């Protein structure tokens, strides 16, 4: 009954192979099997958006997807946002910097979900309006900020993420 199934996937550019029970959720797989605890688990029923990760580049809720379904796919989590510079120092993603500067978080529990939702949105949309940002984050709940600072952070991030050529 509880036989295990192989899962081969790429997370944040790194290949992983594991064998898991098919009922293991992707969120639990990331946290317990891969020890990537940046992906937070809030409601575990697809309402709060805290567990949002990118599946082949698109934001999805990892608590309502099975880990075995990610077999052969590419996942990006919040741990994959920062990059390493020439001096081997971690550099935060411009979106993360914007959240810091605009005070886009308080307790931080929902933040990974907001970041993964917004990073995909801002890649698609270079000059978003406040209204569009609010719509983009409509599937993510935050109980601290009242959202205004998150919207401010997203607007700031959109500025920072604009290609230098403009």
């Amino acid at each position, binding site marked *: *009954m*509880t*036989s295990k*199934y192989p899962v081969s996937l790429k997370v944040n550019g790194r290949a992983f192979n594991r064998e898991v*029970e*098919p*009922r*293991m*959720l992707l969120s*639990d797989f990331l946290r317990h099997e891969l020890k990537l605890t940046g992906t937070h688990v809030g409601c*575990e*029923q*697809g309402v709060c*958006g805290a567990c*949002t990760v990118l*599946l082949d580049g*698109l*934001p*999805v*809720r990892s*608590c*309502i*997807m*099975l880990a*075995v*379904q990610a077999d052969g796919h590419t996942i990006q989590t919040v741990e994959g946002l920062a990059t390493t510079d020439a001096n081997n120092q971690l550099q935060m993603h411009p979106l993360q910097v914007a959240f810091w500067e605009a005070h886009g978080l308080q307790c931080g529990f929902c933040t990974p979900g907001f970041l993964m*939702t917004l990073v995909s*949105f801002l890649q698609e949309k270079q000059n978003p309006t406040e209204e569009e940002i*609010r*719509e*983009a984050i*409509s*599937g993510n709940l935050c109980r601290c900020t009242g959202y205004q600072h998150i919207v401010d952070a997203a607007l700031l991030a959109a500025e920072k993420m604009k290609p230098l050529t403009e």
Partner: protein
Amino acid sequence: MKPAPFEYLAPDSLSSTLEILAENGDEAKLLAGGQSLIPAMNFRLVQPTVLVDLNRLSDLAYIKRGNSGDMLIGSLTRHHQLEKDPQVRNHLPLIHEAMPLIAHPQIRNRGTIGGSLAHADPAAELPVLLVALDGRIRMRNRSGERWVEAKDFFQGIFTTALADDEIIVEISIPRMPNGTGYSFVEFARRKGDYALLGVAVLITLDAKAVCRQARIVYLNAGETPVIAQSAAGLLLNEERSENLLEAVAKDAEKELSLTGNIHASVPYLRHLSRVLTIRALNKAFDRATQSA
């Protein structure tokens, strides 16, 4: 682990899927986008013995034009594809208009049209849209296939014409006649929540602005999408007037089974139905006038 244990099968062809269904019958549950099924499994409200994951059947994800001008949509087409597809925008503007109202971006990236139809939630948008557009649903089992009209497909809350050994493979939606205006409006307490009530309207006008065809279908107003037949009948052979739209909205209300809940009382829902109906009728008439 949230879901109860199950046997997991992920067939890579339709024929092997149909074999599995023929053998496992009601023991098996089909997993498409999983945006309703997996939450239900997390709560252990649903505990399938065998879970058949359809996500490897990539042949079932498509949007194309059929020979008769119908739009054909593969059952595994995700909401996100329907929302962005230029053919849907041009040929199925009613669906294009409603897609952003379905849940949230993260859900639309996974959810599928076949899954939404098979789930048959009375508060879901796609069943209502398909009934309004006179869509048809193609289902297959090991021994063959059959088409069912959308209006006959939905039989009750979470209940459809789909048999245990069948799978939805395709949805066909005819072209709207020339001179047709459309609209879909709904009201939800928060963006992306299940709507308290919604309504799809299609109005076809002739060159003299006389209504020749009308369709009014409600969301979350009964066990299935609710067609307001007699209300739509009031529009036939009539020209638009404020009094007429009021009368239609009032008549339609009789056909709705409104049950109050924590979010809205019955009198409130009744008021909402009139407001939404008139809003939707006006929008559809405006568009019909433009295209006539």
